[in-house]
Every structure is written in structure tokens, then in C-alpha cells.
């Protein structure tokens, strides 16, 4: 950080501008990655549709999980 003190105002302004540009690019890249991840999930919509169907089994699994958790906490 001490190097900053040796930089000219002009160089500091240029560095700030470059950093801001990089920040914009990083944000855009992150956004694109999020969108790509969402598109991949939507491509599997058939499977999600199946897993989103309510079944008695998922409720039974949940209750079994609660019982197992309670038992492990007791022991």
C-alpha cells in the first residue's frame, strides 16, 4: 500500500478507472454464470417436474429422518 503514495494523481485515476472496468466485467461474468446455471436447471425441467410431484414417500422419509435425528440426539 505504501507504493500508492509514490503514484501520481494521474496514475491513481487511471488505476481507479481500470479497477472499475474490471469490476463491471467481473459482475457481468458472474451474472452470465448465474444465467447459464439457471438455463441448465431449466433444461432438466422434466426431472424437476417429477421430483416436484408430491408423494407420500417424501413425507414418510421426512418423518423417518426426524425420528432418526431424535434417536441420535438422545444417545
Amino acid at each position, binding site marked *: 500500500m505504501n507504493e500508492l503514495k509514490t503514484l501520481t494523481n494521474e496514475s491513481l485515476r487511471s488505476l481507479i478507472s481500470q479497477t472499475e472496468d474490471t469490476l463491471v466485467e467481473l459482475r457481468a461474468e458472474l*451474472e452470465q454464470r448465474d444465467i447459464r446455471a*439457471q438455463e441448465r436447471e431449466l433444461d432438466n425441467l*422434466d426431472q424437476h417436474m417429477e421430483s416436484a410431484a408430491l408423494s407420500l414417500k*417424501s*413425507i414418510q422419509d421426512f418423518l423417518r*429422518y426426524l425420528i432418526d435425528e431424535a434417536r441420535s440426539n438422545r444417545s
Partner: protein
Amino acid sequence: MAISNIQGADPGLLGQERQGTWQQWVGVAALVYLLICAVGMIGSGFKAATGEHAEQLFAFAVNPFAGLVVGTVATALIQSSSTVTSIIVGLVAGGLPVAVAVPMVMGANIGTSITNTLVSLGHVREKKEFARAFSAATVHDFFNLFSVVIFLPLEISFGLLERIGKFLSQPFYGGADASMSSFNFVKAATAPVVNTAKDVILPLGDPLGGIALALFGIALIFLSITLVGRLLKMLMVGKARDIMHTAIGKGPVSGIFSGTLVTTLVQSSSTTTSLMVPLAGSGAFTLKQIYPFTLGANIGTCLTAVLAATAVTGNSEAALQIAFIHLSYNVLGVLLIYGVPFLRNLPVKAAQWLGTTASENKLAALAYILSVFFVAPGLCLGITALA
């Protein structure tokens, strides 16, 4: 067989499988026709069973909280708001007062949100995934609860929704040339089936025939909505994917429209809201991105009751009024809660808090479901019965 698993299949065959066969589309049309007929049967059966005493039969539900509880518990047990609202439309056509039916319709909104909450329990084994999935499910619950907290007092004090419903239904029965009272194609098309059912069942006697006809109509609604839901889910998954792809990164309004459209296509708000659970659980979609889709689902589900209301006999205008009340309640809920910045994030914050709490202590999830959908409504009903 999942379409994505078909490797090297004939493209024509694949296209046919994606779009569904014509037999499947005929099946959808037949089931929708059956649904509309069934609502007509409920109206006729209820009227025949109660005569002019429908109001007395539902005297216990004159207290709006009792009506709210009836709608909530019935929908939570049947797991379909379309079924419950269609039955309510039929009952209103048969003489149930609109004022009694309004809180029931509001309750149906709360009751339907149990489905995606139960679906989210399937993610219980992964803590972070469960927190995201449970939040995505309960944001719908909280939105519907806030909506009732805002609109039920307005309805009790000013009859706001009843007036809006009346205003919207009047043009169809107000004597205009193109009004439903002068010519109703849907009613004419369903009359042969409804009249045949009446001719066969009503001679059983009074009030047994009416009760039997209403129960037969309820069974038919349940059957047709279940089957049409399954068929449309199969036929529309590709279309739903396209709509949701289009909505990605386009903001909340686009999300609300997509949710509405997808729900209209699959004819089930539970399907749309349950679909959001794995999408949020995987972490690809944030709670704030999921939220507008679930609001759209509330609006999209109203079409079924409006469609059903076009064909009833008896008090047809009141039936259409309650269907429009359901629609306007959901549209106003979205406009008000999502439109006002202060209110917009309340359901999100509540759902985030509950998701985190439930992921830390899974018993909290069970306690929440039992208390919101069964214990609290039961207590309310008990208190109103005693009062």
C-alpha cells in the same frame, strides 16, 4: 420414458411425443368439458337438496373466519385449489350466498400452499438445500397469509371484493346483446350431459337425489382436474420450459407473467409452485427470483373457476361473481403486496427466517405445517362455533 433420454430417436416421432398425440389433446378437451358439466351438476344438486335453505345449511360459515377455515382445510386435504374453488362456484350457483363464499375462496389460497411445502420436505437431508427449498415453498404461504390479513378486514368492513366481483360479472348478465343471459354457448354445449345426470339421479327423491347429484359432481370435478393436470403436465412441460427460459434475467414482472402462463397451461398452481422448490433448492435460482413466479401461479389458477362459472344453471350471475372475486383477489394481492416496496419483501424475509430456522431444527418445519394448516384453523373453527 423421459424425452431427454431418447437417444437417436426418429425426429418426427420425438416431435410428436413433445407436442402430444391428438388423442391426448382430445382427452384434455373432454376432461375440461367434464369439469364444466360437473360444476353445473353441483349447482343443480345443491339447489335441489337445499331448496331455498342453502343459507341456513351454511349458517355456521356466516362467520368469515369459519369460512376461511373451511376453505383452508378443504384445500389442504384435497390438495387442489382449482377443485375447491370450482366446487364453491357450483355451490354459489345452487344458492350459497356470495358473502359466505368469499372467505372460503381466500382460504383455498392458503390451503393450496401446503402442497409445495410438503414437496420441500423431500430436501431434508441436505441442510442448506433444505433451507433454500423450504423458504421457496413458504414464501407462497406467507404471501397468501399476508393477502388474507389485508383483504379479509376490507371485505368484512366494506365488501370490497364482493363489489368488484359484482361489477365485473354484471356486463355478462346485464341485458347487453352479447351477454351470457341471451346466448351461452358453453351452457348450451354442457346442457345435454347435465340434464341427463339430473334426469337419472334427481328422481332418487328429495333431498337424497340432490345430495347424490352434488356428490357425483364433486367426484367428477376431482377426477377431471386430477387427470387433466396429469395430462397437461406431460404435454406442457416443453412449453413451460420455453416460457421460463424466456423469463430468465428479465425481472419480476416477466416472472409474474411466466408464472401465470405456466399455471394456466398446466391448470394447477401447485404444479408451478412445487416446481419452484427444486429450482431454488439446487441454488440456481434465488428466493427473490422464485417469488414472482409463485405470485403468477396464484393468478393463473383462477381460469378454471371462471371457465366453470360460464356453464352453471341457477344463480349463474353469482357464480360468475365469485369466480371473478377469486381472480380480482389474486390480482389485487399481487398488485398491492408486490407493488408496495415496504410490503414486497415481507413474505421473502419471513420465508428466509423460517427456512433457516427449519434447517437448524427440522421439528420446526413439522410444527409450522401442522399449526398453520390444521391446528390454528381447527382452533379458529372451535372458537367461532362456541361464540
